[in-house]
Each structure stands twice: as structure tokens, then as C-alpha cells.
């Protein structure tokens, strides 16, 4: 039984089939990379999984339940967390406040927000999440003042503070330096100890270093799936994506 499974999942925008009949299956604890050329439908596929975009047809199963009809915030409460490709943070709030919103949600998962929170525990969760992405020293700065790459890391910190079961990272290393990318890979490995990860990534070094399995998309459909070695040697993938 898979942790995450999609069945004939499709989404069209006007006449364009951004995602067409995708059957994806991910095992618990896996780091799964999704690669493919720009416009292949990667962001749309994970948006369908997170509920940000409703499907045209198809089904999504998560952790044994059919979640196709669930609202995005209900999916977050079940542990599906999406970090945006186009950074979506609270630019006018501090880093700590950004992460606080995620941490207090995780702390009040089973009860309404006004029932009182353990402030200390929430603050600790905020500090811990910022620490893990290396932004702890900048907690009181405004999020909008961060460099682009660091805004992506803030997104990851918000994701972490939600205590995800499935963390979706949509091109997280864009705008990071070599050293920061290396740190980021270590971070993803540590997150994967207690969560499943869907990683959309263009940097093939990062993909090869992290992914146990790789799914290749093209024109809204799955083109291939396999271990990094299998994918690198896959003829069609080389033609469609690696450009050889």
C-alpha cells in the first residue's frame, strides 16, 4: 500500500492538458525527485496533490484515505505541506512571525486556535525550524528583505514548522550558493528521517545526491520512473530532457 497514490489525475487549463492521466505512487520515507523540462506539469501535479489546484478528473489517495475532495487546509492538517515555487511568504512580517504562523497551526491541529496554545512550545518550534535552515540569527528581520534564495529557505522553515508527513519542495535551491546547496542537501536528508519528500529540482547534482527514485514528466504525462542510474541511462529521457 502506497503512502501517496494518484490515479489518472488530470488537470487542464482551457484547452491545455497541464497534467494528463498521471498515476504516481510514492512509498513512505522516500525522497522522490520529479524532473522534466519547463512546462512539463510538475508544479501543477504537486499543486493537485496539495489541493491548491482542483483536479479536472482523477483521484488522490494519501495515507490510506481518499483526499481528492479535501480542501487544501484540511490536507495541511493531515500532513501534506507545499512550499511554493514562486515564493509566497509574508513579506511585511518578520521571519519569526512567518514561521510562527506555521508552528501555531501545528500546535493547534486538533483544537480551535482560541482554545489556548503552549506559547513556549510554539516559540521553541519557531526557533528550531529557523535554526535548521540556518536563518536563526535573522529571526527579527522582515521576510521581504531577504535575498531570494533565503526566502526559499524561509519557505522550507515554514514547511518544517508544520511538522509534515509529506513535504513538497518545488525548486527549493534556486538562488542558493554552492555552499548553501550543500547545506540544503544535508537538511533534506535529515527531514527525510521522519517525512516523505517530493522534490522538484532542476539541479541534477542535487537530484542525483538526494533522490532514491526519480519520476520524469513531459507534456503533462509521466515519461519514466526509476532509480537515478536507470533514469540517466534511459534513452527517451535523454532525448526529451537531458537534450542528448
Amino acid at each position, binding site marked *: 500500500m502506497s503512502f501517496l497514490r494518484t490515479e489518472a489525475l488530470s488537470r487542464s487549463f482551457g484547452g491545455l492538458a497541464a497534467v494528463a492521466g498521471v498515476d504516481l505512487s510514492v512509498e513512505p520515507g522516500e525522497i522522490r525527485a520529479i524532473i522534466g523540462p519547463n512546462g512539463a506539469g510538475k508544479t501543477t501535479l504537486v499543486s493537485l496533490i496539495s489541493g491548491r489546484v482542483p483536479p479536472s478528473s482523477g483521484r488522490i489517495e494519501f495515507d490510506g484515505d481518499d483526499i481528492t475532495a479535501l480542501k487544501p*487546509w484540511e490536507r*495541511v492538517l493531515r500532513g501534506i505541506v507545499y512550499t511554493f515555487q514562486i515564493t509566497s511568504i*509574508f513579506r511585511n512580517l518578520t521571519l519569526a512571525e512567518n514561521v510562527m504562523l506555521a508552528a501555531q497551526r501545528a500546535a493547534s491541529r486538533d483544537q480551535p*486556535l482560541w482554545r489556548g496554545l503552549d506559547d513556549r512550545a510554539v516559540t521553541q518550534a519557531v526557533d528550531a525550524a529557523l535554526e535548521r535552515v540556518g536563518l536563526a540569527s535573522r529571526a527579527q528581520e522582515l521576510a521581504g528583505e531577504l535575498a531570494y534564495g533565503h526566502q526559499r529557505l524561509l519557505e522550507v522553515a515554514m514547511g518544517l514548522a*508544520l511538522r509534515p508527513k509529506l513535504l513538497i519542495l518545488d525548486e527549493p535551491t534556486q538562488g542558493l550558493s554552492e555552499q548553501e546547496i550543500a547545506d540544503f542537501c544535508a537538511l533534506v536528508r535529515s527531514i527525510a528521517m521522519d517525512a516523505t519528500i517530493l522534490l522538484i529540482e532542476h539541479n541534477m547534482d542535487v537530484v542525483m545526491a538526494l533522490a532514491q527514485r526519480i519520476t520524469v514528466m513531459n507534456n503533462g504525462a509521466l515519461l519514466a520512473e526509476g532509480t537515478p542510474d536507470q533514469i540517466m541511462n534511459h534513452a527517451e529521457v535523454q532525448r526529451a530532457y537531458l537534450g542528448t
Partner: protein
Amino acid sequence: MTGRARVWVLHGGVILLLFLLQFVLPDYHHTNVARIMVLATYAIGYNLLIGYTGLLSLGHAMFFATGLYGAGLPIYYFGLHPVAGFLLGALLALVLAFVVGLIVLRTSGVAFMIVTMMFAQAFFLATLYFNGVTRGDEGLVLAAEARRFGFLGLDLDLAEPATRYNMALSLFTGALLICLALVRSPLGRVMIAIRENEERTRMLGYNARDYKLLALSLSGLLSGAAGAAYVLLFAYMGSSFAAIQYSILPLLWVLLGGIGTVIGPLIGTALMFYLIDKTSEVMQSYLIVVGAVLVALVLFFPKGLAGTLRQRYARWLP
């Protein structure tokens, strides 16, 4: 001082100042300040929605007027106890805001402005239509004896300036404290998050619609409480309080004083009140001056007085 201490000193200081003012103000200003405090309560309620949740309503007069009539009419016609009248008016405004919210929150942005305005316009027309009860524009005046009552062993007369002033101050203090506590709570944080980036807030696991409905209901409750206090303290209710001007005024007060600040609504209300009061004293075309001042403030204080202050000098201001 820590941020927390500063916040309490500042807001506590404002309350204390308002309390002390009553002993030095001449009669005329004594009444004015009482009126300003009631209207500032309305502005605080309005600000919860526009300033903290990011929803621009053009229909809040219906909540203010619901409080006004909900308290005033039963007192006028059935001799209801003023305290019960106040609670009834505020409660009715809460219920109206909740029910209207279920409908208007299906929209956002410009559509939200228009739909709230249409609801308020319908409410306004209803106050004219039921002219037999409300006496429309001419309105109704509460009799002196309807405003004298016993409460908790005290004999109170709302026509008495000191009583009126301190009632207005209590109302304003309550609203200020509620607002202050709310916007610094986890709940207030979510409201601010919705204002800043609604989609992100949803993707953090919050059902934004429910939080907006809650904010609108609370906003309606405070607006209604202000309306109910207004009829009790100033003895008059009329359709003009349900008209479009009373939906626009809180918007101006809040913009002027500082949108999304706790203290801004008081500053804006007081400023606007005295601006109109002073200029209309000396000239006929006073609205030109009022307009010019508003334009200047928008140019030099784009976030309102308290908002610009916060931006430049005092980031800790809630």
C-alpha cells in the same frame, strides 16, 4: 523597556489621559470627547476588518445603526432597561454581521465593497420605509426618564455629563483592550496573515473563510456596541446613521489615524472631528479645507499618522 511593556504603557497612558481630561475640559469639549470616544469605538471595530484582516467594507453603517436602533427602539417603545438595550443592540449587530458575512464573504476585493454597500443601502432604505416606527430622517429622541436607571446599586443618569463621559470611556477602553489582546494573539496573527497573503495562509492549514467570518462578526459586534452606546449617551437615533456617510466615515478615520494600528482609530476620529468642527466654525466651504488636509495627510503620512510613525520610528506599535 521591552516591546510588551511599551505597548501597555502607551495604551494605558492614553486611557489615563482620557480619564484625566474630563476634569479640565470645558463643557463643550467634554461632550465632544465623549462623542469621539464612542465613534472611535466604531472605528476600532471597523479597523479590525480593514486594518487587520484586509477586508474593505463600505457597509458598516448597517452594523452601527443596528446597534443604535436595536438598543434605542425597544427602549423608546417598550421602556426596556438601558443596559439590556445596550446588550440587545450589540448582539443584534453581531448576528447581522455573521449572517451578512455568510453571503458577502463569497466575494472579495471590489465585489466585496459593492456587496457590503448594497446590503447597507437596503438597510438604510428599510429605516426610511418603516418611517412609522423609526421616524426616518427626523428620528426619535429618548426621553430623559428612559436614560435614568439603577445598575449594580448605582443610580445613573446618562444625561449627566460625568456619567456620560465615563460610560463612553469604559466602552472605548473595553474596545481598545479587546483589539489589543486580539491582534497580539494567535488568532490576530492569522487575521494579519490573511491580510498579507491569503493563499499562503490557506496553505498553512487555515480555513481563511472561517477566520474572515469571525473577524467580520467581531467587527460588527464592536460597531453595534458603539451604535447602542451612541443612542443611550446622546439620546438620538435617526436614519442618517444608517446612510452611506456613516460607512465612509470610519474608513476615513482609520485611514487618517493609521490603518492596522490599535491607537490609530482614536487619533483619526479625534482629528477629523475637530477638523470639521473648527473649519465649519470659520467658513461655509469648510469641506474644501477638510479635503485639502486629507490629501496632504495621504501624501505625507500614507499609512496614517500612527501607521507612518510605526514605520519610521516604532516598529513595536501593535
